[in-house]
């Protein structure tokens, strides 16, 4: 949509916007700067040093928590993306009523406060007798990975020309061939963006994990929480900064995938 530059309606809106961005990035910049502080005393600057990153990498507990986090986020985001891709394809062309109902269910994990989901799932696992551990965490994470993956996939799907799918069927492609050769390649950027968003939300989740993880399934956020409760150390600074870098990198990729114009995807097929 092209539009003229809107007239300025509010004096000082630019100033407020600048302050807003300062507010949004001040904590991030502070955290990263302090993570490179050579001094043991976390507040006093003792010169630039990456030594705390070395301390983090040498900590076995952190490595174990990182491994758990990657297993959980990898599995849950894959499962959640597959589930939401299937749902998105199945719902394309569904009736209005079915669609509203299904999308309501899909959005539910985002609408219900995390603490409520956490309580409900904990009660369910305990009452059913399902052991708390990595598997229960993976199931819980898959629940909220589904909506995170669903929306990018759906918006990509909505932009596709349904004639392409019809043409594939007319040319005797089996549903599986149609999916593998037409739908999946065209949806790929949306699927990947959705998977990345799901991965990051799983990697960062604390509240739900805190409830449904048994003692053996400590993930990185749960471990960090324990460290923060004990006190502020330079090690926490470096560890949280690493998590910050990973998140920013992954989200930037997801954003750029979402920005890719529709045309360069269809181009290869139309020509």
């Amino acid at each position, binding site marked *: 949509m092209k539009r*003229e*530059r*809107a*007239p*300025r*309606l*509010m*004096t*000082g809106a*630019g100033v*407020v*916007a600048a302050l*807003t*961005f300062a507010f*949004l*990035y001040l*904590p991030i910049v502070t955290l990263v700067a*302090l993570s490179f502080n050579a001094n043991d005393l976390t*507040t006093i600057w003792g010169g630039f040093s990456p030594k705390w990153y070395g301390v983090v990498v040498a900590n076995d507990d952190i490595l174990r928590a990182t491994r758990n986090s990657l297993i959980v986020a990898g599995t849950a985001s894959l499962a959640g993306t597959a589930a939401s891709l*299937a*749902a998105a394809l*199945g*719902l394309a*062309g*569904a009736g209005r009523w079915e669609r509203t109902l299904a999308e309501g*269910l*899909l959005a539910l*994990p985002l*609408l*219900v406060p*995390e*603490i*409520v*989901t956490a*309580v*409900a799932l904990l*009660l*369910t696992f305990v*009452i059913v007798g399902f052991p708390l551990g990595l598997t229960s965490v993976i199931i*819980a994470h*898959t*629940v909220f990975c*589904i909506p995170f993956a669903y929306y990018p996939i759906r918006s990509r799907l909505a932009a596709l020309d349904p004639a392409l799918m019809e043409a594939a069927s007319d040319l005797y492609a089996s549903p599986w061939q149609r999916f593998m050769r037409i739908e999946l390649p065209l949806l790929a950027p949306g699927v990947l963006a959705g998977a990345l*968003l799901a991965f990051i*939300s799983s*990697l*960062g989740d*604390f*509240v739900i994990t805190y409830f449904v993880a048994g003692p053996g399934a400590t993930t990185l956020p749960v471990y*960090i929480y324990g460290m923060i409760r004990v006190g*502020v150390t330079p090690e*926490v*600074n470096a560890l*949280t900064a690493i*998590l910050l870098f990973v*998140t*920013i990198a992954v*989200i930037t990729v997801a*954003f750029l995938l979402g*920005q890719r114009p529709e045309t360069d995807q269809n181009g290869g097929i139309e020509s």
Partner: protein
Amino acid sequence: MIGQRTHKIVQTAPTMVFLAVFMIAPLVLMAYVSVLERGAFGGVAWGKLTGVAYEKLLMEHDLLGNLVFNGDYISIFARSFELAAITSALTLAVGLPTALYMTTLAPRRATMMLFLVTLPFWTNLLVRNFAWILILRNGGQLDRFLQGTGLTRGPLDILYTPVATGIGLTYSFLPFMILPVYVALQRIDPRLIEAAFDLGADRLRVLTRVVIPLAAPGIAAGVVLVFVPCLGAYVSPELLGGGKSLMIGNLIEAQFGASRNWPFGAALALVLVGVLLLSLALLSRLQRRTRRTP
């Protein structure tokens, strides 16, 4: 066509069944647990239905065993409401001018700004709140800055107060306000604004009589998107608020940790959901009304 329809159902069903089993069923189970009696060793006593958990919200037994009013839990609910309302108001006060400014930018720059607004949201909630500990604690970055400029002398003592919780919540949920407000402002037909100016309205009138009413659905959506997670917040009050400014989320968590009163925890969670459903219903009514007026 029946074949294709079956195919679609087979595609959709597993996801829906999964969500029904791990989202709907747990909520139903939670509602059931909330009316059960507390077990002797934590957990619940099956089959013993009681309203004790809900009674506990308002009442307590005094030393003589009489049921008397107890405002402790209500005051935690009130504080949570207050903090959620203040946070919604603050994010709106900051978010509206920011979103307005973003609509004056060229599309590429506006997209870039949108990305910058959302990026902090994706970073880990613990990390964000931890960063505020670094800034707000005594001897932290804010203290050092203020003392360095001679504005203050002693420590500010902000950390572990409701003010710190408010800052953490505002920081956490600001993107949820900016995004829907920006989208709503972006959709306004610029000709309406021009027409208002041509008819002699000044900027304040255009803003208050044209722009804000037209952006009302976006503002309402932003308020709900901030208010809902705020009311159930756990991390910010826990890390920044200290023990003195508990919110509902912390109270719920305590029932599954130290207090081991699952029915009460389940009841609190259910009341929270009820309150949120009520506010969502209010919002949709508000949205319907604003859609009708223009």
